[in-house]
């Protein structure tokens, strides 16, 4: 019997490559920063460390988007909201860590609260001086929002483009809310001027190197968790939902509950990515909620290749590398370049760059099986 179709059984080859590259990055960047002299071309500067760390955080966000879009067909155009909420939770911890070292020297209240005449710390800031509490909130805040939002959306059978539009509305509403000074999240300035994390100086290279390695580890762990889900029977149910939702329901699977679990899990990954992003970048403000950010994340996934997980990460890194370069060299053309990229990929690379690499970019007509 001839094997005329490819099966993905027999190990996750692309995933092994992906994890290997990630390990190399996590080892090579510290080595190239510490052991190679600054005069050498191979030296990775402090700026380089932050940049790579940022790419890895975006990679995690792309992974979260691919899990629900590539495998379950849920196109969320609001995933940056979960990313930002995780970032804000981490930012609140970092603000509390500043303590009396702020400009106004208030040991309890962050600078912006003194500036806005707050008399005492708002109740929702309690506990954020403890790192473990902040970590719990990094997971809970985006997870809970996704749970409530998803519960209403999926229960009402909101799907397709309607779902995409209300996720845009969600992130836009959050952006407007966080812009307000009286929300207690620093208004349009957000949080910045962080000093240290767990007692380690956020201005030193070694702290940034550790954060980079932690981000790479978190990305690897998220990848393996997503892979475990999509390779399980639940993963096959999820793909069945993507391809024929009502048929899956007819087989007795609670489709809404699958979507909800997956959506919440994806939001939590996005939230963790945001929490890792903030200490490395050093600032979080409401513009992180802006609708364009969520749309960009979807473009990363489309460029990298939907439904492969590692393709999404590759897309995030490549597009952001291009963004770093183009916004430096030709700042006015970046948005046009991004739009053109999306159109070109949609037209000519339906399976993204990963499809190109694995040599199956075009949908070939399937061969007739041999009888």
């Amino acid at each position, binding site marked *: 019997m001839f094997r005329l179709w490819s099966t993905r059984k027999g190990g996750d080859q692309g995933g092994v490559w992906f994890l290997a590259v990630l390990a190399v990055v996590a080892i090579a960047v510290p080595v190239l920063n510490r052991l190679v002299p600054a005069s050498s071309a191979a030296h990775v500067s402090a700026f380089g460390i932050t940049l790579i760390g940022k790419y890895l955080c975006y990679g995690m966000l792309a992974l979260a988007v691919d899990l629900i879009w590539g495998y379950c067909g849920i196109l969320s155009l609001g995933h940056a909201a979960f990313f930002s909420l995780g970032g804000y939770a981490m930012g609140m911890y970092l603000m509390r860590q500043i303590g009396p070292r702020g400009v106004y020297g208030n040991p309890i209240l962050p600078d912006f609260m003194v500036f806005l005449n707050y008399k005492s710390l708002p109740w929702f800031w309690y506990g954020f001086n403890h790192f473990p509490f902040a970590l719990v909130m990094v997971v809970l805040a985006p997870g809970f929002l996704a749970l409530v939002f998803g519960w209403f959306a999926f229960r009402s059978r909101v799907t397709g483009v309607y779902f995409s539009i209300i996720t845009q509305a969600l992130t836009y509403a959050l952006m407007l809310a966080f812009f307000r000074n009286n929300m207690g999240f620093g208004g349009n300035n957000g949080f910045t001027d962080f000093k240290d994390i767990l007692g380690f100086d956020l201005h030193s290279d070694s702290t940034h190197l550790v954060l980079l390695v932690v981000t790479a580890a978190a990305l690897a762990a998220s990848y393996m968790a997503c892979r475990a889900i999509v390779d399980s*029977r*639940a993963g*096959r*149910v999820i793909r*069945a939902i993507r*391809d024929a939702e009502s*048929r899956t329901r007819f087989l007795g699977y609670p489709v809404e509950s699958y979507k909800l679990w997956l959506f919440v899990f994806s939001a939590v990954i996005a939230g963790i990515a945001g929490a890792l992003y903030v200490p490395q970048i050093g600032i979080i403000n409401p513009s992180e909620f802006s609708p364009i950010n969520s749309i960009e994340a979807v473009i990363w996934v489309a460029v990298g290749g939907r439904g492969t997980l590692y393709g999404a990460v590759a897309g995030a890194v490549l597009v952001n590398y291009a963004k770093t370069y183009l916004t430096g060299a030709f700042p006015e053309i970046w948005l046009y370049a991004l739009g053109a990229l999306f159109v070109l990929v949609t037209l000519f690379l339906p399976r993204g760059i990963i499809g190109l690499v694995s040599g199956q970019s075009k949908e070939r007509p*399937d061969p007739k*099986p041999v009888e």
Partner: protein
Amino acid sequence: MRVRDKRLNLQDVTVSFDGFKALNQLTLYVDPGELLCIIGPNGAGKTTMMDVITGKTRPDSGTAEFGGDINLLEMSEAEIVEAGIGRKFQKPTVFEQLTVFENLELALAGVRSFLKTLRARITVPQNERINEVLEIIGLSRMREAPGRILAHGQKQWLEIGMLLMQNPELLLVDEPVAGMTPQEIERTSELLLSLAGEHSVVVVEHDMAFVRSIARRVIVLHEGRVIAEGNMDKVQQDPRVIEVYLGV
């Protein structure tokens, strides 16, 4: 293997939509292990009858019992599936991106919740059952092929296979050979004949040659009631059937 002993009984079932009687005091039975064919012109009530049996439509009057003790009219669609009645719709919908094996795996009776399917593994008896069904529907060699590459007929058989994974006592099959090639029709009749005995099978079909090739007992429906019953030869010579079908 549970004992196949449930007899389906419809008694005086009437369904009306805005005064139009889709079923008019319909009475029929299906014996355990029997292969029954139901024919009739468009609007005769064939689909409505299937809807009543599967709980999709509730009749205005009459009774529908499965075995001595199961009253189908008081059960939800899911409970009726659970009780052992499976239905294959006219248009085949298999999962295109999943393999034939995975299609059957998802149709396996058993765990349905996310947290349980996350950890579910195929047990040895389940694997055997899938292989057995693959053998029955003639797709053993297509086991690892994705659903999208199957020919129309193969999709129909896979769909019947998915039904068999639930191990139903009664199979309701709606127009199984529509759009099939003569060879596919022949294999479908072999398949349905092999299922009878182990399962009760009710086939609704327009294709007379096909019905002739498989039927032992044929029921002709017209305007919501049975107008003829018996073997194919007897039914075809019935003057009322000739009138309904040929308009003589």
